[in-house]
């Protein structure tokens, strides 16, 4: 083999070994032993891996998760904060109209609050452990993820214009602060063409623990704020994300070059829509300037 060939050969061998690699440590008698069982090659092997690694039983884990999701949903849906937010929609809409002259919402209806299904939660813990894994070799048991996975309960507000996203989030923050509720904002803009603000509020809930007794969980509720065009696109994106995001093996060719794939189409569409929404804002600004000059 020439030099390039040998290099390619080495990479190939490493890849095959890596795919089956178990993490080992040297024991006191000098022999290697498994620190973790072999990493699962797919999500189908994940429950077995969880059982061997943490003694985690899917049935019990699911019951605990369902209890958490249900309690968190009820706590949030019946909270004074959600009541305040729901009642303030018309007023927030009016504030935006007074400020800009445009509508904030398409509809004043209170959005639906959703619970993350168990399967999605488990899959997200899989992604945390193996797809987005930081490489520090520490793995998490699903019941240690309740405070990390911040969309167990979520809802989504849809606004008409780009500047409405920031406007509404500021109102959500103001109302949450007034209630003394811990909150945070994440501004999302990713490679896949997803654009939104995520506003999180912290809720403490008591649920029965697998080991017995009760445990208090501090979990975030996610309030997404996005535009109508992005919301329409999310319906398409969701199906494609499901396929791509649970793959452990990264694709060598970036999606930007896989122009025949669904991912290329929807990701580009996401960026294009965001760009168009920016242009709409510019049209609005120019229209205001023109009105001011008349």
């Amino acid at each position, binding site marked *: 083999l020439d030099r390039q060939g040998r290099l390619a050969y080495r990479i190939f061998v490493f890849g095959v070994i890596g795919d089956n690699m178990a993490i080992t440590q040297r024991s006191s008698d000098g022999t290697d032993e498994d620190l973790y069982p072999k990493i699962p090659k797919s999500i189908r092997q994940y429950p077995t891996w969880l059982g061997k690694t943490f003694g985690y039983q899917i049935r019990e884990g699911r019951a605990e998760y369902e209890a958490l999701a249900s309690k968190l949903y009820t706590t949030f849906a019946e909270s004074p904060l959600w009541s305040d937010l729901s009642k303030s929609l*018309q*007023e927030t*809409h*009016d*504030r935006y*109209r*007074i*400020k*800009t*002259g445009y*509508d904030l*919402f*398409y*509809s*004043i209806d209170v959005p639906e609050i959703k619970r993350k299904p168990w399967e999605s939660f488990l899959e997200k813990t899989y992604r945390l452990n193996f797809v987005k894994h930081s490489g520090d070799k520490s793995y998490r048991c699903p019941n240690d993820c309740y405070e990390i996975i911040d969309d167990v309960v979520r809802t989504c507000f849809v606004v008409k214009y780009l500047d409405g996203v920031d406007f509404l989030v500021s109102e959500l923050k103001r109302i949450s602060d007034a209630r003394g509720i811990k909150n945070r904002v994440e501004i999302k803009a990713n490679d896949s063409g997803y654009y939104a603000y995520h506003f999180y509020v912290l809720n403490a809930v008591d649920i029965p623990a697998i080991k017995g007794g009760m445990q208090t969980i501090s979990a975030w509720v996610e309030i997404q704020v996005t535009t109508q065009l992005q919301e329409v696109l999310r319906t398409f994106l969701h199906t494609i994300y499901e396929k791509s995001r649970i793959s452990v093996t990264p694709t060598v060719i970036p999606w930007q070059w896989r122009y025949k794939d669904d991912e290329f189409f929807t990701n580009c569409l996401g960026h294009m829509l965001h760009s168009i929404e920016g242009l709409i804002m510019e049209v609005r600004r120019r229209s*205001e300037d023109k*009105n001011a000059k008349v």
Partner: protein
Amino acid sequence: MPKYDKDKIEEYLGRTLRATDPIVNRVKESIEEYRSLLKEDPIFLFLEDAINNEGIRNFVNVILLGNQLYSEFTIDRAQNGFLCLRLKNNVVSIQMPQRAHLSFDKVTDQSRLHLVFNLLGLDSPVRLTATGENCAHLLDLMKNHILPQMRL
């Protein structure tokens, strides 16, 4: 209200129109500006409203009438528009392109009214809309303040 009575502003805006605090405050600002400019109280207040296809009620303009003047303040601060016209004997025509679920003496929650009137010397007509119970106030404005000023 809408015959102007400063003690009944909140009743008209809050109870009849269910306007939120920011809108009520904006109307009060407009009244203050009117008083500051014309050195008198208006005699008539009308808050124009419209319901869009998604069912959202929006408030558009604050209409304040003096004895001879028609004035209009936009609700939105971005535009912050102001219009002042002489009404007296100056109305050329009155149209109602939409007059849904109402007669001249009866309105319901379903009522929708679109009033258009032309003034001599003004290029574009004045257009006003109202929904539900507010249609009665727009009819009041038309019957008692616009129609009597028709140029004969």
